[in-house]
C-alpha cells in the first residue's frame, strides 16, 4: 500500500492516483565521472536547470525540468555527482546514495534511475549499474559514447546487453540529441515496472548469513540494506542487530581472510559474464589518448608541457584580465560619484558610497581574474588534462603529505585563492582537502601585487644586482618563495598533528582526452561564479560596512559646512579625509595596536592601513593614500613620494627599506582577504576553519615580520 502512495500520479492509470494531486516524476541520472552524464543532462533539460548545494555539504545539487510526457507535469531530473560506486568512500558517493534511497529532505526517492554507461568503458561502468540494480528501483541504461566505441571497432550488442541486465538499454548521442526520444519512452515504460533483481549471488555461506540478516526478528530489512550493513563500513544503530552483524563477520572471516571482497568479486564476475555476452573482444589497438599521453606524461616533455600550460594560464590571467578589471574599477568609481551626486549629503550616502559600493567594488574587481581561472580549470578538467597534472605532480605533493590533486588548486591560488579553494572539491579525503585549503592563501595572489609594487617602487626601484637584475624583481621572487616554503612547512606539520591521516592514496582514472564542451564549461563557470558572488557577497558586504563604520565614527567636527560640500578631492578635502580617519575608531585602533606592531617597524598610521587591509590586501594602498592626504584621484607616484617622506613624531622616517620588507613579509603570510574567509566558511561549512586560519596565519605573519625587522636591525640594515 505504501508503494501506491509513494508512486507518482503522472503516469498511473489507476483511479486512486487521478484523484490525488499529480506529483512530478523524479528521475535521477547516475554514472561514473567522464561517462557523459552532464552532456546528457544538458541535452535533456536545455537550460531549465538550477544548481544549489545539498543541505550542509558542498556537493553540488543539479536539478532540471524535463517535459517527459505530454499532459503530465514535467519530471524533475536530478544530476547526481559522478561516482564509481555507492559504497560511500567520498562525500559525493554518500550523497548519491542518500538521494537514491530517498534520505534527502524534500526530495523523494527517484521513480526511475537513468544509469549513464560509457560504451567504451563498459565493464567498469557496469559496476555502478550492479549496485544500482541492488536497490531494485526502476532503471534504464543510457549508453553513451556508442558511436565512439563503434569507430574503435568495439561492438556492443544492445539487445543482448539489455537482456542480460534485465533493463532497457538505450544508446544515446547527447551532442546530436540522438536517442533522447527512445530514452524518454524507455523511462515512461520503466516507471511502471517494479522488482528488479541483481543477477549475481554470493557464496553459499555468505548468502546464508545475509538471509539471516534480511529477516531476523520479523521486522523487514531489505536485502541491499543487509548487504551494505554486512559488508560496508557503517553499522546499524540497533545494538542487537549490530552484534548479529559483528558475529556474522567473524564467522565469514574464519573461512576467508578476504571475506569483505566477496560482493565486489561477485559483481565483477557477473559483469564479465554480461559483457562477454554483449560485446566483442577488447581490441588493444592504441587509442588516440595513448598517443597523446606519450607526449603529455612523457618523462621530460610532461613536466615541460605542464609548466607551459601554467605559464599560458598566468599570462592570460594577468594580461587579459587587466582590461575588464580597469573597467569594473572605473565603473564602481563612477557609480559612487553618481550616487554621491544624486543623493542628499549625509551618513546614508556615505555608507552607500564608501561602505557598500567601494567595498563590493573592491572585491568585484577580482571577478575577471576569478572567472578566467574558473574557465581554465574547467577546460583542464573537461579535456582530461587535470588527471595528467595530478599524475605528474603526485610524487612532489606526496612529499608534503598531500594528494596529486592538490596541485592545481594550489597553483591557481597564485592568481587568486578563491577558485583554488573551490577547486579542492575534487580531493576526496576531507582532511587532505582541509590541509590544501589551509595552505592555499600562502600562494602570493594578485591582490598582493599592488602592495609589493608600492613597497618596491618606493625603496628598491633603482638598485641592481650584478648590474642587470633589479633588487625589486628579486624581492618579489623572494616573497613568492617565502609563501611556498611556509606552505610546505605548514602542510607538513598539519598532516602530522591536527589533520593527522596516512598519506592519501592515489587511485586515479586517467580519462580519455575529450574535446571540451563549451556549453558545459560556461555552465560550470556560471554556477561557480554565482555561488561565489552570492555566498561570499553577503559576508563581504557585512565586513565592508563594519570597516566603513570603523573609519567613519566618531565623526570629526567639520570646520565649515561649505567646505565639506566641495566634493572634489582638493588638497584640503584630502587632508580633511585624513583627519577624519585619524580620529575615527580605526585611527584609535591604530593607536591602540601601536605597541604591538611597533616591534615590526610599523607606526600607528601604518596600523590603520593594516587594519583596513584585512578586508582585502590591496586596500592598504588606498588607505595609505587617505592617511597621507594624497587624495584618491591623484596618481601613484605622489603616494610613493608621500610614503618616502612620511615622518614619525620624532622626525625619523616612518618607512625605511627594512620596514617595507617587514610589511611585504607580513602580507605574504597574513590572511587579509574577507572573500577567502567567506569562501572557506562556505567550503568547510563551519566558522571553525576560517577563524583558525585567520588566527594562525596572523601569528605566523607577526612572528616572521618580527624576525625580519628585529633581525634586520641587528644585522645593521635600516
Amino acid at each position, binding site marked *: 500500500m505504501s508503494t501506491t502512495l509513494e508512486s507518482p500520479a503522472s503516469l498511473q492509470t489507476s483511479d486512486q492516483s487521478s484523484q490525488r494531486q499529480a506529483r512530478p516524476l523524479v528521475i535521477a541520472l547516475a554514472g561514473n565521472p567522464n561517462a557523459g552524464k552532464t552532456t546528457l543532462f544538458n541535452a535533456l533539460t536545455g537550460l531549465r536547470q538550477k544548481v544549489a548545494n545539498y543541505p550542509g555539504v558542498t556537493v553540488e545539487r543539479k536539478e532540471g525540468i524535463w517535459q517527459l510526457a505530454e499532459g503530465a507535469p514535467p519530471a524533475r531530473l536530478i544530476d547526481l555527482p559522478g561516482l564509481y560506486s555507492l559504497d560511500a568512500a567520498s562525500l559525493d558517493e554518500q550523497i548519491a546514495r542518500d538521494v537514491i534511497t530517498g534520505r534527502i529532505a524534500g526530495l523523494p526517492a527517484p521513480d526511475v534511475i537513468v544509469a549513464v554507461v560509457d560504451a*567504451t*568503458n563498459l565493464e567498469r561502468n557496469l559496476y555502478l549499474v550492479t549496485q544500482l540494480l541492488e536497490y531494485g528501483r526502476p532503471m534504464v541504461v543510457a549508453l553513451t559514447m556508442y558511436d565512439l566505441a563503434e569507430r574503435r571497432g568495439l561492438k556492443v550488442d544492445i539487445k543482448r546487453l539489455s537482456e542480460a541486465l534485465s533493463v532497457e538499454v538505450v544508446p544515446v548521442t547527447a551532442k546530436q540529441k540522438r536517442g533522447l526520444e527512445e530514452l524518454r519512452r524507455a523511462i515512461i515504460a520503466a516507471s511502471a515496472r517494479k522488482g528488479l533483481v541483481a543477477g549475481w549471488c554470493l557464496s553459499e555461506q555468505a548468502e546464508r548469513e545475509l538471509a539471516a540478516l534480511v529477516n531476523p526478528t520479523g521486522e523487514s530489512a531489505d536485502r541491499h540494506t543487509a548487504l551494505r550493513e554486512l559488508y560496508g563500513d557503517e553499522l546499524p544503530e540497533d545494538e542487537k542487530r549490530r552484534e548479529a552483524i559483528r558475529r556474522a563477520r567473524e564467522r565469514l572471516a574464519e573461512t576467508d581472510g578476504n571475506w569483505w571482497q566477496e560482493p565486489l568479486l561477485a559483481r565483477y564476475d557477473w559483469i564479465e559474464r554480461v559483457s562477454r555476452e554483449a560485446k566483442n573482444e577488447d581490441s588493444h589497438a592504441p587509442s588516440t589518448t595513448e598517443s597523446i599521453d606519450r607526449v603529455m606524461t612523457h618523462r621530460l616533455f610532461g613536466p615541460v608541457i605542464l609548466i607551459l600550460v601554467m605559464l599560458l594560464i598566468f599570462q592570460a590571467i594577468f594580461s587579459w584580465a587587466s582590461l575588464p578589471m580597469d573597467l569594473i574599477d572605473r565603473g564602481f568609481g563612477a557609480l559612487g560619484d553618481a550616487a554621491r551626486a544624486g543623493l542628499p549629503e549625509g551618513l546614508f550616502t556615505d555608507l552607500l558610497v564608501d561602505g557598500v559600493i567601494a567595498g563590493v567594488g573592491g572585491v568585484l574587481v577580482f571577478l575577471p581574474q576569478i572567472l578566467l581561472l574558473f574557465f581554465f580549470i574547467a577546460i583542464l578538467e573537461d579535456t582530461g588534462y587535470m588527471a595528467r597534472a*595530478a599524475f605528474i605532480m603526485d610524487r612532489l605533493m606526496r612529499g608534503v603529505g598531500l594528494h596529486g590533486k592538490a596541485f592545481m588548486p594550489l597553483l591557481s591560488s597564485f592568481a587568486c585563492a578563491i577558485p583554488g579553494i573551490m577547486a579542492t572539491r575534487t580531493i576526496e579525503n576531507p582532511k587532505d582537502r582541509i590541509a590544501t585549503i589551509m595552505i592555499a592563501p600562502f600562494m602570493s595572489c594578485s591582490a598582493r601585487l599592488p602592495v609589493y609594487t608600492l613597497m618596491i617602487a618606493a625603496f628598491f626601484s633603482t638598485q641592481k644586482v650584478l648590474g642587470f637584475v633589479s633588487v625589486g624583481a628579486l624581492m618579489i621572487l623572494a616573497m613568492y618563495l617565502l609563501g611556498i616554503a611556509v606552505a610546505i612547512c605548514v602542510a607538513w606539520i598539519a598532516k602530522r598533528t591536527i589533520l593527522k591521516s596516512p598519506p592519501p592514496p592515489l587511485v586515479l582514472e586517467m580519462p580519455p582526452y575529450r574535446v571540451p564542451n563549451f556549453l558545459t564549461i560556461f555552465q560550470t563557470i556560471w554556477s561557480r561564479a554565482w555561488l561565489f558572488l552570492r555566498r561570499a557577497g553577503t559576508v563581504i558586504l557585512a565586513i565592508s560596512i563594519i570597516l566603513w563604520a570603523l573609519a567613519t565614527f566618531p565623526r570629526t567636527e567639520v570646520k565649515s559646512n561649505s567646505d565639506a560640500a566641495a566634493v572634489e578631492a582638493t588638497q584640503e578635502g584630502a587632508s580633511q579625509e585624513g583627519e577624519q580617519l585619524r580620529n575615527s575608531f580605526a585611527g584609535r585602533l591604530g593607536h591602540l595596536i601601536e605597541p604591538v606592531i611597533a616591534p615590526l617597524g610599523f607606526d600607528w598610521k601604518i596600523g590603520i592601513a593594516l587594519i583596513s587591509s584585512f578586508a582585502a590586501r590591496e586596500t592598504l594602498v588606498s588607505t595609505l593614500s587617505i592617511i597621507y592626504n594624497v587624495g584618491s584621484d591623484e596618481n601613484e607616484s605622489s603616494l610613493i613620494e608621500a610614503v618616502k617622506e612620511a615622518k614619525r613624531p620624532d622626525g625619523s622616517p616612518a618607512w625605511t627599506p627594512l620596514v617595507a620588507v617587514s610589511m611585504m613579509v607580513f602580507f605574504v603570510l597574513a590572511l587579509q582577504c574577507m572573500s577567502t574567509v567567506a569562501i572557506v566558511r562556505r567550503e568547510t561549512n563551519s566558522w571553525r576553519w576560517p577563524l583558525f586560519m585567520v588566527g594562525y596565519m596572523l601569528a605566523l605573519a607577526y612572528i616572521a615580520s618580527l624576525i625580519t625587522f628585529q633581525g634586520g636591525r641587528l644585522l645593521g640594515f635600516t
Partner: protein
Amino acid sequence: MKERPPQAFGLNFLLSTLIFYRDGTIRAMFRAIETGVDGVSSSLANLPIGAHARVIAVNGTGAVARRLMEMGVVPGAQVRVIKTAPLGDPIEVRVRGYHLALRRTEAQTITVMPGK
C-alpha cells in the same frame, strides 16, 4: 649463440643499468631472475613497463583496497603496465580497457601472475 666481446657486454650492462635503474626495471629483472618471468607470482609494482599480467589477489584492506577493486582491479583481471610518472611514482596501468594511475605503495599490495 653468437659470441660477444667482453668489453661490449660490460658497456651494454653499464648503459642498461643507467637507463633502467630509475624506473625499477633492474629491480624487476632481479625479481624475474628470482622468480622466473612467467608462472610465478609477483607484485604489480615490480612489473616492468609494458608487461602484461593477471591479478591474483588484492591484499590490502580498507578504503584503498576497496576502491581498487571497485575500479576493476579484482582477481582474474588482466592488467598491463603502461608507464611510470616522470618522478618514478605513481604508475599507470591499463585495466578493463581504461587507464588507471596508482602509487607504488598501492601497487605493492596487488599480487599478479605475469603473462597474458
